[in-house]
């Protein structure tokens, strides 16, 4: 039903393509003579590196031109250690990979904070730096003249090209298998979530920095491992082999391969290396053809030019996203009340308390000494005219903004100024006024990647498919299904979230917030775009969440009738501060509230 079971239920046959490709590689190498053996070896090695970039760029959305640098590091470290006889053969490559991982971690930490484009340029700089280091330390690297890497020995015997080919093939096979698990597993989906909405990712407890660094380390280990193999395979290293054109080759392989398909990346690498061999004599047109190929593939993947059905077919071919037919909207309207599982109940009723919170943007005060308290078991409404600071309050509490002064505590734990993902982990979940969903994922996967159990299971356990991780994954899937059922979203579970109508995306956000097992639930204009009867059912749901499950529900809304119905208490904000606080009926008659509202209404109509 739900996506994450795909791995378990799929025919094992489908995952055998790495074996199939390897068989092809062996056949070509055996029948084609030593040149084809060499070329196929190169394709395998470049593929390994490109799979690593699929993790960084295809899944993580970070355009890295530093991949060539990490590849070079792995190659040089392995090459130098091997040439000087410091380590025996396969260990040289392992050492290269380790250095590559460390370098990738540093790149991730130092450069990973930048915006996408800045990162692309800075990562280009990393490639330049490594190239220059390789030219400068002549004693170690041979400088411009390069470094000869002698064929490795094993127990005193020189390894033949055939046995090296075997070694490369094994590394390739492992890389494919692990790469596929990463790409299709929860880690890959988590990275895609992060790249589709950083804000939403943080709101469900994902640390962008940490995930990016992890993806760099994984991608880097692939690149460095491939680099080590490259030096041994080619027998010669020189700085100009590891320039920006190599980085662009890797990027092109990822894009031509369809961005997140490991198999696609491998085939694209074969095409990129094979084309210059096949189209000898085309002259200048090879360059133009190469450029056109990139343009055409870019358009094929990302274009709106082609008619929708063609695009979907192409996309599903390239991106291999399954496109089930959307459910009939009539079927998706739930007939019963929203009832998420009772297992979400909190152990101890929380207290969220906001004291004297202030923040200003460019001299304009958005919050001025704002205070409020939300308690478990209670639905608290926050109301106020446009620009009163309601959403800013939410953003300050959840760590999207850092308040200038004041404090936020959750059950006596100070969470003031914490980054968003830590606030989320402390037990605060939220929705966004303009729905922030992970546009690349299905509805069910929004919840799977947000689930604390998924996030808490180590990556190694997930990739290796350890029993604990499998059990966890099953539990996550069960709970995801219960929550989706409880919110009437079951029919949408395997749909791409982009197919879900705008109003219902609010419900998807709510479901995603609930899967976090929140103590405090902050909802920003959740009824926007929903039909009236849904709003009624929601009001009922909030009561259930608060009274039966003990969650503190804070509801920002313009919908006064809803607030009157749903809330136990209402806080009124105007001009960045609280002007009234009390039960709904008391607020209704408050003169200040009327003044604030009417004043603004008149202004905005005038």
């Amino acid at each position, binding site marked *: 039903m739900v996506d994450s079971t795909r791995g378990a239920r799929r025919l094992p046959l489908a995952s055998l393509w790495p074996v199939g490709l390897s068989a092809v590689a062996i056949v070509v190498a055996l029948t084609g*003579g030593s*040149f084809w053996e060499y070329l196929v070896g190169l394709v395998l090695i470049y593929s390994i590196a490109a799979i690593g970039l699929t993790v960084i760029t295809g899944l993580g959305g970070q355009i890295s031109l530093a991949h060539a640098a990490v590849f070079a590091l792995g190659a040089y470290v392995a090459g130098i250690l091997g040439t000087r006889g410091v380590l025996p053969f396969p260990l040289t490559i392992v050492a290269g990979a380790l250095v590559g991982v460390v370098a990738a971690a540093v790149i991730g930490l130092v450069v990973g904070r930048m915006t996408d484009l800045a990162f692309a340029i800075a990562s280009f700089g990393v490639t330049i730096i490594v190239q220059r280091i390789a030219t400068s330390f002549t004693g170690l690297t041979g400088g411009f003249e390069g470094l000869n890497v002698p064929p490795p020995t094993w127990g005193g015997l020189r390894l033949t090209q055939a046995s090296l080919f075997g070694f490369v093939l094994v590394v390739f096979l492992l890389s494919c298998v692990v790469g596929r698990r990463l790409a299709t597993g929860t880690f890959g989906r988590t990275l895609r979530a992060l790249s589709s909405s950083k804000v939403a990712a943080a709101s469900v407890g994902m640390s962008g920095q940490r995930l990016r660094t992890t993806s760099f380390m994984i991608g880097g280990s692939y690149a460095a491992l491939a680099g080590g193999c490259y030096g041994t395979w080619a027998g010669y290293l020189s700085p100009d082999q590891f320039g920006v054109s190599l980085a662009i080759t890797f990027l092109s392989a990822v894009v031509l391969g369809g961005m997140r398909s490991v198999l696609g990346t491998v085939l694209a690498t074969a095409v990129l290396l094979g084309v210059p061999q096949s189209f000898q004599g085309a002259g200048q047109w090879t360059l133009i053809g190469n450029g056109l190929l990139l343009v055409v593939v870019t358009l094929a993947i990302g274009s709106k030019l082609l008619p929708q059905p063609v695009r979907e077919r192409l996309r599903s071919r390239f991106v291999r996203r399954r496109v089930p037919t959307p459910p009939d909207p009539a079927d998706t309207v739930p007939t019963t009340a929203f009832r998420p599982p009772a297992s979400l109940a909190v152990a101890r009723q929380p207290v969220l308390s906001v004291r004297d919170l202030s923040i200003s943007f460019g001299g304009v005060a958005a919050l001025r000494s704002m205070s409020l308290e939300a308690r478990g078991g209670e639905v608290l409404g926050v109301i106020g005219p446009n620009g009163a600071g309601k959403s800013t309050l939410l953003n300050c509490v959840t760590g999207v903004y850092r308040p200038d002064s004041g404090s936020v505590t959750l059950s006596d734990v100070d969470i003031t100024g914490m980054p968003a993902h830590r606030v989320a982990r402390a037990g605060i979940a939220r929705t966004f006024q303009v729905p922030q969903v992970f546009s690349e994922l299905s509805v069910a996967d929004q919840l799977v990647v947000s689930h604390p159990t998924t996030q808490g299971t180590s990556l190694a356990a997930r990739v290796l498919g350890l029993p604990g991780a499998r059990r966890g994954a099953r539990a996550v899937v069960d709970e995801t299904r219960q929550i989706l059922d409880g919110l009437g979203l079951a029919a949408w579970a395997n749909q791409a979230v982009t197919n879900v109508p705008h109003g219902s995306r609010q419900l998807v956000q709510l479901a995603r917030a609930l899967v976090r097992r929140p103590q405090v639930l902050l909802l920003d204009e959740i009824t926007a775009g929903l039909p009236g009867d849904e709003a009624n059912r929601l009001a009922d749901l909030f009561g259930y969440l608060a009274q039966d499950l003990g969650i503190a529900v804070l509801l920002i809304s313009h919908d006064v009738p809803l607030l009157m119905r749903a809330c136990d208490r209402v806080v009124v904000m105007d001009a960045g501060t609280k002007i009234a606080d009390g039960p709904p009926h008391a607020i209704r008659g408050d003169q200040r509230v009327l003044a604030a509202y009417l004043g603004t209404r008149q202004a905005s109509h005038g």
Partner: protein
Amino acid sequence: MAVARRRLFIAALAAVCLGATACTTTSGPGGSAGDTVGITQNSIKIGTSMGLTGPTAAEATAALHGAQAYFDYINDHGGVNGRTIDLTALDDGFSAAQTVTNVRRLVQQDNVFSLFYLWGLNNTVAALPFVKQSGVPLIGPQAPTSAVTDPVIPNVFLMEPTFNDEAAVCAKQLADSSSVHKLGILYENDPIGQDALKGAQDAEGHLSKPMAAKVAFTSGTPSFTGQIVSLRQQGVDGLIIFGTNPDIVNIAKGISLEGWHPALCGSSNVFDPTFLTISGKDLNGLNGSLGQYLPESTEPGIVTYRNRLKQYFPNEKATVFGVQAYGEAEVLVHALRSLGKNPTRAGLLNALNSLTDYSSDTLFPVSFTKADHDGVSQYRLVKVVNSQPQFTSGFLSNDNLFGNG
């Protein structure tokens, strides 16, 4: 399920494609180390890899046409002892990694008898380990660097002075001038520049004047004022410049702008007449040395070259690279001829190793010994006069210039 089937399908498709390509392009036993590989009843197969596309397309194509013009002429006139020369030229787009792949293909797949010319310094150096290991002769790579000749690689023969030598000659020439008191070198931060720097440094011991400044520059930079002013401030009055031509024009302009008049000496690439005609007057007076005749020269051999080029490639112009490749083709054919009816690789190497002062149409006399594979050790000093190169000396060698010390 559908996914599973599709993936299998793709994998199978890939398998068929790869297998099919491999089968169709495999011809005979791959990469045998036999001594007569590439020799058939009526042809001798040789191969090269050049940057026929990409940044060096025009120059590389001109070189290829130069060599091909000579081979075509030979083939039209009975070939080499009855065999035609069959040159396979692969394009590497000036990428060194691609050169390595191409050279492997020529040796292991296309089974060439010998490699001929290779375009580019990086490209050649990158292919050297494989060339060395394969033992296949490589005749005349366009890679004038000491990395090719020092130490001697038994199967690799260079036929032009290295940048290393050129820089040493420059240093000596400038140091011997009475107007020069302090030398400096301004070199591009690339393998050519590095080789030149090494040459100039090695020559330092033989010079009567000190080498005061060594400054690298990045190609394509719009302004070199900083480097120029700094060199001048350090008292340099004899400047060696090694780099690509557009940068050298820019530097020369900058120097004359500063009202500075150091004695200049540059790499041989500057003396390309087409280039000098657009360079203006700022390069006038620049010294250097050349190991070949100029494409516009009226030397009988060069006239022959131009005529044959016109005959076989009417649209190609005479260039320094064409002159070089044409002459190298001539040397190769000469050596192959001397092998009689049954040429072998070992025979070719022997013939080249005993070549003494062979005068081709376009190159200065070529000599090889087992201990020296830098075939053109003679050069002539040259100077830019009225934006044209002009020889200022007869044939010289390092022995003449530096003495035997």
